[in-house]
């Protein structure tokens, strides 16, 4: 397989597991770079294609997807309920009791599957800075190995959603401006460990597959994050 064939194949199907394609990627540095670029772009595509279900209401689509099913609903009601479900926007319940915050964080994190991937790739500092700046935050370059940085709508607010590659895998960091917690709040659900730490103007939620990654990732971020730029 030559480089042109590889690029045609990989550019059409980045998930291709053809042995010749994989072997060429291994042997050719330029094509390996091309492949990484395509995969990075595809991660952005996934996010872009996942348009919110409730148009114009700013609600994240996961809120509708996690709605509990109504039991015994007549079949005709199914289609109607879909429309209703789609039409109902997310209520801003930022200030709701913290009981559900863990579930909401996990739901958000798991919905963005691209953020759960172990990778050697790092987002450029300019991108990280841009995402943070949108939430009036800043962090010096080199504090953490950030592999994913996006502004997400969470509980009706714009929230920086970062992924840092920890010792045991990806660690999700969500910076929750204005969400105050009295003290560090930890949780363990669905196979994930999490902690919500109070911070200057809100809190920082950190979720990892291994508990040991929480402190390793959280300390430098908590120490270096600037809240009002």
């Amino acid at each position, binding site marked *: 397989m030559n480089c042109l064939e590889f690029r*045609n*194949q990989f*550019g*059409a*199907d980045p998930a291709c597991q053809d042995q010749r394609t994989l072997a060429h990627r291994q042997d050719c540095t330029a094509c390996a770079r091309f492949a990484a*670029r*395509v995969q990075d*772009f*595809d991660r*952005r*595509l*996934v*996010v*872009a*294609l*996942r*348009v*919110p*279900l*409730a*148009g*114009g*209401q*700013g609600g994240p*689509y996961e809120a*509708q*997807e996690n709605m509990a*099913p109504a039991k*015994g*609903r007549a*079949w005709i009601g*199914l*289609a109607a309920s*879909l*429309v209703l*479900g*789609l*039409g109902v926007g997310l209520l801003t319940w930022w200030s709701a009791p913290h009981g559900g915050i863990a579930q909401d964080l996990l739901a958000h994190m798991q919905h963005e599957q691209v953020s759960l991937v172990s990778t050697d790739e790092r987002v450029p500092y300019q991108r990280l800075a841009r*995402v943070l700046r*949108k939430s009036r935050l800043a962090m010096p370059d080199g504090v953490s190995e950030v592999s994913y940085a*996006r*502004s997400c*709508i969470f509980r009706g607010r*714009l929230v920086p959603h970062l992924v840092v590659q920890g010792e045991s895998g990806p660690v999700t960091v969500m910076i929750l401006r204005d969400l105050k917690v009295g003290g560090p709040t930890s949780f363990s659900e669905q196979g994930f460990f999490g902690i919500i730490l109070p911070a200057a103007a809100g809190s920082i939620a950190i979720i990892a597959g291994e508990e040991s990654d929480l402190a390793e990732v959280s300390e430098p971020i908590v120490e270096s994050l600037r809240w009002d730029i």
Partner: protein
Amino acid sequence: MKQENTEESRRSRFENMTRTHEGDLFRFAFWLCRDHSIAQDLVQETLLRAWRSFDSLRDESAARYWLITILRRENARMYERKRHPTQDIDDLTQAEQGLLANTPDTDLADLREAIGRLEPDYREPLVLQVLMGFSTEEIAGLMEIKQGAVLTRLYRARKMLMKFFEE
């Protein structure tokens, strides 16, 4: 009594199935017609048709493919029945602010707009692959074109988007 239980079980299986897929069905419908309310109608019609022919679905693990097939047919029917006025993409981004443009992440809004600008022949296989997770073989089956044509369209769609987005 037994008949009622059977009907209840059928309804329950259908609801479970649609609950799993309705989000992505809507998104696929949206990218097909680029209109929020038409996409809602399309999904509604699709689910009604799916319910009527639910017994014909032998393998529920194939539900996603089956539902998309129905949705594509329904889209063609709707298009024949009622020719919706076409909208310029620049107007669309204003009209559909909630879906395309009104995200605070400008990169994301730009990318969504660029996807919307793709010709349907390129956009559809891309959505089927990236959002719906279908293989190129499955996309060829759904779109009733050859797998080679699917690969070409996917390659060109990515190339156009990457060029637009990375410039």
